[in-house]
């Protein structure tokens, strides 16, 4: 009897152990190391061969082997082979600065009613200083000729300056000058032939320096990304995959994938397996929606949390970025002259022509639900000046299947608004009528609003505004991704303001927690009292 029982027990235990172990292997915890996550296999596949190849050496093209005297001539030479390039480009937002593509709808775009809380408005391309970033020759805006080289030249050569010199010297017959002109011509010729797909430097000329200087606008885009290491950006790192911008911002007919005022970068996230012709703009494109090891709990997050939320722990990690811009402080003078004050990071904290700034480095993002779209308050929208105006803000909530919790830089500031019409105003900044010359805000607004065709009442004040930038670049290597308790924690959770879901570690029901703990401490108090009672009555024993 004893023996049989013993054997039975032993066998049962063995069976239980075996079953538990097999169950664990199937359902839980970590798979063997050699088993790679689907997303990782896909991503490796996508970067297997990074070499671009071409059948053309532009140095051998006759059309480029000539003495150029103007930008227009260079473009003409480009178009002599790439016949449709300018036609395509003229329809792109890079050229029109209008989300709709043409002037029939002026609502959204730098050249339309869109405003921000940096230099506020492009004033329908009236503000020439903005046009430094418009890809036409000689700041002529969309009236001018496309400057192909702005995006497609790797020489770093200043063509406009060189061509300007040639034009200035053209009347001069001095042999020394003529020789100099010949030298410049030769330099231009050599530089022109350095045709390339847009490099990080090309795109960065505008996108790293938007808002008037390095790192002003985005927070996740600044000149540190021209030659980043993989710690700063695991994709673009020159010691890593060395991605160019267009590796992800794929292009069709000169339309470059990415978010614009009215549309998200993509409507739905699809991997290359699902749609190999879709723009490769999302993480999911290459990494799929199961980027982590099989059965990793992380994969359960991807329907709610964006990749960026955990994999970009901080932005502006190398160069500082502007966080605050107060236009209401602009216009102060020292000895009757405009001045500036230098602050931390060697950045200006005050400038008479622009107002007060705050810069920050290594900034923790703010998190919001986002389906990729953003609201955009234009100069034609009525605002509530009693509140902080969200000039740009992410759209989405828990109920939106495309929405994820996404990191953002929120740029705060104060900017002028029309006290009567309750609309944000668009002061003209550069030029002889601009604020930077006249220091007369009222006059600058008159001119600026006239340029975009929106009436101004003549009375303005300043209102606090926010502008949201999605943080999506500066993806850190995986070992630097956030750990669980950056969010799953009761106090100071990064996702403290995210509503619509229950997060273990962050959330609890005060009522039910209290009931539960009362029962625990009630029991504890009860047994303590009971125990003391037994102690003092000595369990009823007399001695």
């Amino acid at each position, binding site marked *: 009897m004893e023996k049989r029982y013993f054997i039975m027990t032993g066998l049962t235990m063995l069976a239980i152990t075996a079953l538990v172990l097999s169950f*664990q292997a199937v359902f*839980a915890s970590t798979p063997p190391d050699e088993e790679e996550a689907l997303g990782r296999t896909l991503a490796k596949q996508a970067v297997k061969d990074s070499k671009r190849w071409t059948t053309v050496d532009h140095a051998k093209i006759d059309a480029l082997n000539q003495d150029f005297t103007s930008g227009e001539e260079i473009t003409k030479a480009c178009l002599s082979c790439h016949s449709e390039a300018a036609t395509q480009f003229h329809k792109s937002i890079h050229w029109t600065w209008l989300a709709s593509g043409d002037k029939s709808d002026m609502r959204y775009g730098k050249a339309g009613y869109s405003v921000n809380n940096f230099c506020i408005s492009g004033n329908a391309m009236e503000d020439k200083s903005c046009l430094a970033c418009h890809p036409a020759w000689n700041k002529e805006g969309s009236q001018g000729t496309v400057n192909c080289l702005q995006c497609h030249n790797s020489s770093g050569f200043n063509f406009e300056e060189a061509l300007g010199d040639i034009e200035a010297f053209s009347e001069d017959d001095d042999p020394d000058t003529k020789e100099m002109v010949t030298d410049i011509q030769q330099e231009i010729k050599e530089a022109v032939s350095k045709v390339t797909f847009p490099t990080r430097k090309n795109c960065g000329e505008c996108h790293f320096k938007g808002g008037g200087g390095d790192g002003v606008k985005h927070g996740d885009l600044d000149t540190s990304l021209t030659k980043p290491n993989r710690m700063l950006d695991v994709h673009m790192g020159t010691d890593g995959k060395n991605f160019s911008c267009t590796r992800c911002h794929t292009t069709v007919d000169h339309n470059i994938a990415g978010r614009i005022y009215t549309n998200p970068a993509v409507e739905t996230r699809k991997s290359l397996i699902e749609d190999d012709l879709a723009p490769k703009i999302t993480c999911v494109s290459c990494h799929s929606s199961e980027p982590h090891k099989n059965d990793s709990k992380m994969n359960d997050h991807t329907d709610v949390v964006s990749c960026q939320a955990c994999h970009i722990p901080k932005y502006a990690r190398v160069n500082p970025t502007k966080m605050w811009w107060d236009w209401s402080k602009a216009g102060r003078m020292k000895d009757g002259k405009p001045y500036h004050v230098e602050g931390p990071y060697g950045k200006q904290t005050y400038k008479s022509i622009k107002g007060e700034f705050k810069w920050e480095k290594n900034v923790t993002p703010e998190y919001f639900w986002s389906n990729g779209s953003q609201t955009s308050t234009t100069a034609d929208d009525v605002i509530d000046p009693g509140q902080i105006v969200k000039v740009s803000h992410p759209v989405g909530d828990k109920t939106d299947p495309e929405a994820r919790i996404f990191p953002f830089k929120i740029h705060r500031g104060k900017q002028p608004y029309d006290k009567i019409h309750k609309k944000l105003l668009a002061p003209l900044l550069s030029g002889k009528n601009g604020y930077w010359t006249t220091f007369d805000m009222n006059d600058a607004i008159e001119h600026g609003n006239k340029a975009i065709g929106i009436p101004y009442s003549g009375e303005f004040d300043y209102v606090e505004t926010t502008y949201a930038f999605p943080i999506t670049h500066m993806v850190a290597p995986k070992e630097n991704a956030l750990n669980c308790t950056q969010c*799953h924690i009761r106090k100071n959770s990064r996702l403290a303001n995210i509503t619509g879901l*229950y997060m*273990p570690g962050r959330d609890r029901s005060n009522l039910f927690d209290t009931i539960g*703990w009362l*029962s*625990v401490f009630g029991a504890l108090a009860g047994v303590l009292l009971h125990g003391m009672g*037994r102690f003092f009555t000595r369990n009823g*024993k007399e001695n």
Partner: protein
Amino acid sequence: MENKNTIKIYLYTRYERFWHWLQAFMIISLIVTGLEIHGTYKLFGFQTAANIHNFVGLSWLILFAFFVFWLFTTGEWKQYIPTTKKLFSVILYYSWGIFQGKPHPVQKAKGAKHNPLQRLAYLGISAMLLPVQMATGLLYYLYNDIPQVLPLSVLAVIHTLVALFLLNFLVIHLYMTTTGHSLFSHIAGMITGWEEIYETTEIADWETQATKKE
């Protein structure tokens, strides 16, 4: 009160003792890691706590199925049939008699391991709290893999509340182990299997009926 001779009887079989301590270990680790996941304190780190919690929780679930199988095939389930007989005298004993050195109204015996109060408590826990805890735990674990039965917030709140109720039980249970002949005699019984009872104790028929062989 004169005859205080005690005898030892073999009360808990090897499997019962094994199951008791394994379950104790599992429940305590689940409470410890669970409360960390709940954000009550920091101990192992959230990720490790969650991994341990999942592993132990799933293991417990499987082992519990074996326990239920054992319970019914051996007929031991009858030990959990609730009864009001002597229930109030047990309650009276713990709230009054124990301070006066009165004997426990119900003694343990082979066929009657639990007094009426224990029966009620264990039945409540095994039939109510534990199933709810297992169900909510499993639904919580599989939240992303199966159609949504209840929102995560509801699952989590129930799961936490029941966990605290089980902690409440644990506190009382631990204390009750000290109410034997000596402070540790009940614990010793659960370790060795042999429990001391009074020689003169009479086991009423209704108590052992349940497990009596026909």
